């Protein structure tokens, strides 16, 4: 594994953990469920990165496999928490959304169990392990859902903005949320290609490693701009998209 991937992983893991801590602090104040769910999702994803980064700096190979397995479990659990967040915030009364959450969770659990049954505990062999594709598909659907909701609500918020019913920052948050989901989908595609390549040639290529690292870091930047936006960024968005002048009729 390349050094860039390690540094990328550390940055991403820390990013999730800090965002999680901030959202957890907010949830204590507000006692609302959405912030709690997102804090849990980010915490689990952050801990997954901790599990994946530790083997890269340790010599004791005996703990590699347990840490990778723990990383997978934490990723799946975090993804399930994120789908609960999506359902609660965007589709609170939708039976389809409830079914989607159940389907995603079932896909991840069955995919994990099936991989374990075939002995592919670390889920590294998409060429021989059909269960890998089930778990991967469930993750892809969960992140694609983030993108779809983000872009859909971005379109709606642009219309509200024209009528003075939505701020530039609110609009921008939906755009960033949609982009976050879109980049995560691309990352998952690159991850699948990476693993197939690994099974074919026995090593990870440096170029794909660099691309994957970038695709992991970009969403963290978006998440920070959504949930922890610096004042300078907020001012820039407000200046670049001033309140439109509404004409009647």
């Amino acid at each position, binding site marked *: 594994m390349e050094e860039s991937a390690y540094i990328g992983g550390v940055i991403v893991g820390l990013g999730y953990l800090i965002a999680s801590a901030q*959202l957890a602090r907010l949830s204590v104040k507000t006692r609302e469920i959405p912030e709690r769910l997102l804090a849990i999702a980010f915490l689990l994803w952050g801990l997954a990165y901790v599990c994946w980064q530790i083997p890269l700096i340790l010599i004791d190979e005996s703990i590699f496999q347990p840490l990778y397995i723990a990383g997978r479990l934490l990723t799946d659990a975090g993804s399930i928490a994120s789908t609960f967040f999506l359902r609660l915030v965007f589709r609170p009364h939708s039976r389809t959304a409830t079914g989607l959450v159940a389907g995603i969770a079932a896909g991840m659990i069955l995919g994990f169990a099936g991989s374990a049954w075939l002995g592919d505990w670390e889920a590294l062999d998409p060429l021989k392990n059909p269960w890998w594709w089930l778990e991967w598909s469930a993750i892809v659907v969960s992140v694609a859902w983030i993108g779809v909701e983000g872009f859909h609500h971005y379109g*709606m*918020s642009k219309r509200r903005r024209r009528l003075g019913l939505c701020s530039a920052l609110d609009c921008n948050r939906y755009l960033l949320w949609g982009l976050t989901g879109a980049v995560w989908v691309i990352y998952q595609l690159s991850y699948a290609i990476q693993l197939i390549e690994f099974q074919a040639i026995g090593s990870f290529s440096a170029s794909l490693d660099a691309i994957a690292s970038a695709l992991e870091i970009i969403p963290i930047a978006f998440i920070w701009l959504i949930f922890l936006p610096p004042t300078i960024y907020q001012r820039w968005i407000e200046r670049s998209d001033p309140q439109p002048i509404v004409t009647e009729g």
Partner: protein
Amino acid sequence: METSLFDFAAQKLEQHTGFSQLEARGTLRIAVKSAGLEPKNLTVDELRVVFEKLMPGELEQRGVKDSLGACAAVVRDLESAPIAESKSPSNSPDDVFRRLAKA
């Protein structure tokens, strides 16, 4: 059955325009959607903007002569909507994301 703000506004639109129930609900749904709003999660303020800025045009297209007068009448009725305050959503996606941005 509980009356939503959408139902209330559609009923008033029907009264002030002479539309059938289906026409009133359909026209309101089109206006609400083109404002980027969800019929299930409306506030009085949002509906007021819809009736002031979008609905007059929609009514004119459908041959209503005094479209501005009809819209003003619905806006006045909205002020006294009995379900107005209780139906205002506090956990809409906008509210949640705005709150989370203050983490």
